[in-house]
């Protein structure tokens, strides 16, 4: 296939946490609020006058200092972020909102605060920590709303004079939804038998929407969508099998590339930083305040394994099954960043249940934060492709 016109532009955005568009938005007087977890309702950080940047540590090298503070048993994501923060890599931030989602991210940000690793010379800089519900129900919703008020809206209004009215929130949701719609439409090309977009390309576009001010990438995404409508695919699909990637935090596009270089096509992305459900639009009605509606939708659609009620646990596996069918996957890759406790358990449960109860071919792997060109992972994915092939042949013979 011909290269996407703006792919290099989007790839460049992912080379630095402090990318050009963040600079541009800040020069326009907007405040940049950092966050690290999908449980922070993104539109609330994108109210008029501010924008969100989900933290990454691209091109991570040594994480020795991060390891000194957090030990080698915390996930490399948290260590890499702390390392980058200590290097001054997030000095551009104007505030940081952290949910007590997983222990590791929480500790990472606490260390950043204790070590004053961001917010230097910014007198209005704030560190705020949120409690996130562990069950999806009315009580959880009340908590979520209160936490968003106290730990997002309140500091934004008090420190930076941001308009946190219902009207402003609705405006932010509309902008958020526009990006989501674009990405959803682009992502739908992955459903084609001979898709006109690769999993890697989609991953780059989606990731960019988390780390750059949204309003500055809209035009490029719109152009890309138009381009895809007429993009000619290769004569034959280039892959052996279609896989759905499920699991913990992935902000390393090389991981998706590696899977695709091993003969698979990543047809759907159900992981933190992925589009499912992270890029589902938020539907608002007029009969209830926007904040409550946002929180409800974040809570009920959230696929984070820290949700502990049975409906949510079962729902996570049902959702994966549904996505695999919707995106015509041949198999599922459950991936977990090494040392991630929540996904260690969810990977074990999910991979067994999807394999035994839903009859999907499943590969369960753990991986470092940045995978580079791991031969081990490549071998595992290739072996998985072969096993899918064999199963297909066996089914045809039957």
């Amino acid at each position, binding site marked *: 296939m011909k290269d996407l016109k703006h792919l290099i532009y989007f790839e460049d955005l992912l080379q630095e946490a402090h990318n050009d568009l963040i600079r541009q938005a800040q020069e326009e007087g907007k405040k940049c609020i950092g966050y690290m977890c999908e449980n922070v309702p993104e539109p609330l950080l994108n109210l008029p006058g501010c924008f969100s940047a989900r933290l990454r540590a691209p091109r991570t090298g040594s994480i020795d200092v991060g390891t000194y503070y957090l030990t080698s048993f915390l996930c490399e994501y948290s260590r890499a972020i702390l390392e980058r923060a200590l290097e001054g890599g997030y000095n551009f931030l104007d505030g940081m909102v952290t949910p007590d989602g997983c222990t590791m991210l929480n500790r990472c940000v606490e260390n950043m605060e204790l070590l004053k690793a961001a917010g230097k010379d910014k007198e209005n800089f704030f560190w705020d920590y949120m409690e996130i519900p562990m069950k999806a129900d009315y009580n959880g919703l009340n908590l979520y709303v209160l936490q968003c008020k106290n730990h997002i809206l309140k500091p934004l209004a008090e420190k930076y004079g941001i308009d946190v009215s219902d009207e402003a929130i609705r405006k932010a949701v509309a902008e958020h939804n526009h990006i989501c719609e674009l990405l959803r439409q682009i992502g739908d090309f992955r459903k084609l038998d001979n898709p006109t977009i690769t999993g890697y390309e989609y991953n780059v576009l989606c990731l960019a929407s988390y780390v750059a001010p949204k309003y500055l990438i809209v035009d490029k995404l719109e152009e890309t969508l138009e381009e895809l409508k007429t993009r000619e695919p290769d004569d034959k699909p280039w892959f052996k099998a279609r896989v759905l990637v499920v699991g913990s935090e992935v902000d390393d596009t090389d991981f998706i590339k590696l899977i695709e270089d091993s003969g698979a096509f990543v047809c759907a992305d159900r992981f933190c930083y992925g589009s499912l459900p992270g890029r589902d639009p938020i539907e608002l009605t007029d009969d209830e305040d926007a904040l409550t509606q946002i929180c409800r939708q974040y809570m009920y659609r959230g696929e984070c394994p820290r949700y502990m009620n049975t409906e949510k646990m079962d729902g996570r596996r049902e959702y994966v099954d549904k996505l695999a069918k919707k995106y015509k996957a041949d198999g599922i890759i459950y991936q977990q960043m090494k040392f991630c406790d929540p996904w260690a358990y969810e990977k*074990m*449960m999910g991979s*067994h*249940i999807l394999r035994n109860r839903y009859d999907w071919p499943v590969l369960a792997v753990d991986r470092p934060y940045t995978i580079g060109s791991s031969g081990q992972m490549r071998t595992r994915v290739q072996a998985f492709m072969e096993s899918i092939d064999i199963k297909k042949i066996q089914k045809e013979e039957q």
Partner: protein
Amino acid sequence: MKKIALKALLYILTGGLAFFVVTFTVYFFNLDMKLTSAIEPFLLKWYDRIPRNQHL
């Protein structure tokens, strides 16, 4: 009568003393733990043989 009572007391004392000597010996020389530690390997083999419905 007195003789019977004395005899009973003697039996009780002798019994008590024997109980004390035996149990104190077991206690002091840790014979209870030495015995149970010798039993444990057989017990573990027994547990290994129990059919189990091992799954998630």
